[in-house]
């Protein structure tokens, strides 16, 4: 029964992702390799709301500045540090303003950072652009988290 329930939940999550209700920040969802960070983020409003490139790029630039990572805007995926890549992925999710953002296994996104404080600081800065952001992590990583900000879902 547990399996069936899990499966249903997974299916529901998939459907939600497909509808754009959940945006994923995941190690398995790479950035588009031949576009710069700025273009990767701007791509979403270009598609979703048919913005011109300049409008979309301005939005993306605004987010990058808010996050404090504007210096990386011209870099492409292979040149990014883990933190920069993670921020770019997060902002790509944020700019679409989905009801839920899932940050999937951040340990894999930020292998050489004490990531919970880093992430929560980042989310703090972006708070006004966020609806609901959840962090999905393994149970054994729970000690890394502050008691005030536990991970949302433990696998």
């Amino acid at each position, binding site marked *: 029964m547990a399996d069936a329930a899990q499966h249903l939940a997974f299916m529901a999550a998939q459907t939600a992702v497909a509808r754009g209700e959940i945006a994923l920040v995941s190690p398995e969802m790479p950035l588009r390799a031949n576009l710069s960070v700025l273009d990767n983020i701007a791509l979403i409003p270009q598609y979703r709301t*048919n913005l011109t490139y300049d409008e979309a790029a301005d939005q993306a630039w605004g987010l990058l500045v808010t996050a404090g990572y504007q210096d990386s805007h011209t870099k492409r995926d292979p040149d990014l540090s883990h933190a920069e890549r993670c921020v770019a992925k997060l902002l790509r999710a944020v700019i679409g303003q989905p009801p839920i953002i899932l940050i999937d296994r951040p340990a894999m996104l930020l292998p050489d950072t004490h990531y919970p404080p880093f992430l929560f600081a980042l989310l703090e800065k972006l708070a006004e652009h966020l609806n609901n952001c959840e962090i999905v992590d393994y149970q054994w990583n729970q000690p890394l988290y502050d008691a005030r900000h536990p991970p949302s879902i433990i696998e």
Partner: protein
Amino acid sequence: MAFVTHFFIRRGAAFLTTWRIWRDTLLFAGRAVLTACAPTAYNSATRTVVMKQIYFTAWQILPGFTLFAALLSYVLIQIVVTTAAKFGLSDYALEVTMRLLVLELLPLITALFVALRSSSAINTEIALMKINGEIEALESACVDTMRLEFMPRVIGGMISVLALTAVTSVLALVLAYLAVYGWQTWSLPDFSRVMGKVFDNAVLFGILLKSLTFGLAVTVIPVAEGMATPRKLFMAPISVLRGMVRLFFALMLIEVASLAFKYI
């Protein structure tokens, strides 16, 4: 007995694989063309990709390829004209030249050149995107990869093949005139008469259709092959290899079909 069964199973599997990839290619071609026909499919990002595709496929190679095509055309025209003169068939030299170059050779060479240069690049890129999971990532971010990545390449490829064919064909006609009549304009009526004889409506439509089919093949096949790549890095070269072989086969098939349609 087991050997025979095994043999048939293997053959059958191979056949099914081939059949599936061709079917997927055709389905993809249909979807790409349908998408391209919908005006809503175009947004600022798509337009940029289309323009970049045309830039990389046509603009970058235009000077070099035009020069090469001019050289090839001139040599072939000279061969045809001299040979025809030797057999006393000079009247037919111009017509033969036009048919040989403009109807058959230049579209095919253009398609082959674009295939060699851009199709291999497209195939590699799509295969790597597929292996990396970039396509899934885009899809999950609600970006329609058909509109962002595939359809613009198809449109760009078709327009590029058309543009290169048009430029080289017109150049070949000018060269043919110069080779047959020399540097003067009095023979234009004569030239026009042969033009009128060769390029009737069916032939004009045939060139357009052939160039478009070539353009479709040089983009659709590598994209479909790239999409069909399993998500393993070592499959990338195999994917490009298969895509190129299938593309060559498809181009030849189109050429033979057009020849058969015209002359049989």
